[in-house]
């Protein structure tokens, strides 16, 4: 187990290093940020001095090593626009995105798995067909459009929920969270549901496919022959067997939701990381872009590591392979 863990952590490090090179080169290729930052009317001397100050006159590899060296010391640079350390800037936006993404994943999981189980358990029933129809809508209708519809229906027409923004926050474990109050929930529920819709459709289909496959297996028949109730058959035998693909997709989707909740955050004016990165791209705020992408790489690497570890817990046969 320890060997497996070390192996995976080394792999993760390689991924992070490779990604840092790609991100750095990619952002470098976009162009010289100085031209965007300064007043076009300013003179050449000012331009030169700024280029020198940010080190853009040095060779590319030198710039990369300076950047990596700073990063290892926890310094990801300073935003050109906000004049704040980038890490601080991103971390101040992280809780908002985190709570939005986690709430969305919770909605998708708590609805998607039971609905998928039912649709797979009684695939020919009318309710199962309705669920499948809904799941197709879930991942084929564009997110922003559903978001607008939700605002139209619940905020404008019915007036039940606010149309955007984030509720009042309280500090929990050093993070500003809004889901601690009922009012905060009234703000988060629409964007979270909007964000959950795609994942909900995906989880329903995945759970259904797995359930149909496992229901026809010999061990389900054997479990029934032992007189296990249908609830036990599904809850014990089926759920455990279909959990591996579900955990995989859950991990991937959690990562992408955290990193790319941009559309929903924009539609609902949610002050999260997605909005920050879009703003930074439009003004070529290079340190923010680089730091954000590195953070996303970290997120995915960590989530994948956790997913791999959970695999071993879920399926003993994987543990055997990993040990050998």
């Amino acid at each position, binding site marked *: 187990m320890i060997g497996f863990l070390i192996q995976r952590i080394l792999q993760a490090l390689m991924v992070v290093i490779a990604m840092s090179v790609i991100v750095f080169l990619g952002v470098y290729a976009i162009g010289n940020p100085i031209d965007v930052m300064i007043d076009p009317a300013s003179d050449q001397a000012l331009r030169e001095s700024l280029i020198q100050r940010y080190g853009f006159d040095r060779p590319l590899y030198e710039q990369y090593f300076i950047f990596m060296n700073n990063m290892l010391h926890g310094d990801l640079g300073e935003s050109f626009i906000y004049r704040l350390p980038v890490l601080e800037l991103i971390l101040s936006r992280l809780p908002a995105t985190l709570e939005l993404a986690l709430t969305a994943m919770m909605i998708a999981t708590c609805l998607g798995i039971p609905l998928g189980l039912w649709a797979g358990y009684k695939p020919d029933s009318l309710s199962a067909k309705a669920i499948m129809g809904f799941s197709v809508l879930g991942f084929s209708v564009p997110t922003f459009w559903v978001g607008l519809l939700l605002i139209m229906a619940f905020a404008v027409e019915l007036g039940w929920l606010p149309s955007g923004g984030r509720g009042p926050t309280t500090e929990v474990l050093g993070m500003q969270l809004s889901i601690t109050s009922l009012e905060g929930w009234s703000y988060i529920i629409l964007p979270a549901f909007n964000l959950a819709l795609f994942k909900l459709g995906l989880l329903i289909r995945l759970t259904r496919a797995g359930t149909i496959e496992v229901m026809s*297996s*010999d*061990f389900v*028949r*054997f*479990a*029934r*022959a*032992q*007189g*296990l*109730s249908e609830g*036990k058959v599904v809850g*014990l*035998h089926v759920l*455990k*067997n279909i959990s591996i693909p579900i955990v995989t997709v859950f991990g991937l989707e959690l990562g992408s939701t955290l990193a790319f909740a941009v559309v929903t955050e924009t539609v609902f004016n949610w002050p999260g990381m997605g909005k920050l990165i879009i703003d930074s791209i439009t003004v070529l705020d290079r340190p923010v872009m680089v730091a954000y992408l590195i953070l996303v790489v970290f997120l995915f690497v960590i989530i994948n590591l956790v997913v791999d570890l959970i695999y071993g817990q*879920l*399926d*003993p*046969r994987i543990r*055997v392979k990993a040990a050998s």
Partner: protein
Amino acid sequence: MSEAVLRVKDLRTQFKTRAGVLKAVDGVSFEVGRGRILGLVGESGSGKSVTGYSILGLIEPPGEIAGGEVLLNGQDLTRLKSEAMRKIRGAQIAMVFQDPMMTLNPVLKIGTQMIAAVRAHDRVSRKVARGRARDALAKVGIPSPEERLDSYPHQLSGGMRQRVAIAIALLHNPAVILADEPTTALDVSIQGQILAEVRRLADETGTAFVWVTHDLAVVSSLADDICVMYAGRVVETGPAADVIASPRHPYTAGLLASVPAEHEPGTRLPQVPGSTPSLANLPPGCAFAPRCAKAGPACTTTPPVQHFEDGRTALCNYPIEPVSCQPLSSTSTTYRSAS
């Protein structure tokens, strides 16, 4: 024969398909007494397994039980509602399946699966259930049962897994265990051990077994009685030793003739000509007639059940005359109890 614990009367199970109604089980009757082993013999597709599933009420659509009775200690199982049937399944009548690789859930520990099986019928604590699981494993001859409870199925050999499956079937001391070709996937030596174990269990616990198999060698060494099926019908019944020594139905005779052990090495093995007919287009009358050397004009109508003086039956117009001598030249070990 002692009082029958399981009596199947004129059981009919059919599958409604686009090709028409398939009569997988067409009027099957047999009975098995306490502590006895009935061998249900037939080729693939003869309806043996479907008979087993029908008895347990595990037939899924488009299949359905169209008629007949399954009497377990006098109670008709075919009339029970699903919850009442669930309470009987596993408690009074259990089943063991063919492939021990597939019948245990690969991602759950043996203990977890056995505890769930105990608690499906008895409201006991996990600890008590675990104790009972351990005792059941010991009963089927599994060494260090306590450790095995914490094993996953893939950590056990095929023979061990099948013993676990039998232990699970034994958990509630059922009156009857249906075994659907449980030793087919195993090595011959392991098969021998399991057969001996089953014979011992039947004698000691009084559990009746219905042993579904296509392997006559297994039946001849294990079963007390034989019930031969062909195309969904019972074609011959009787005490195992008598049926094997002197088959009355031409199909049974053909099956026995094609057991390799009974033949001179180097000579051509006799076979039953042709193959099992598709249930979708059975010939009218006797389903075996097209493959039967003795078939005559009467075979185009359904033959009567012939009862013989020694309690045996055969579904045939032209049954074979009994052989006077007893050429039971079986070289294999016999697991039959001396009764």
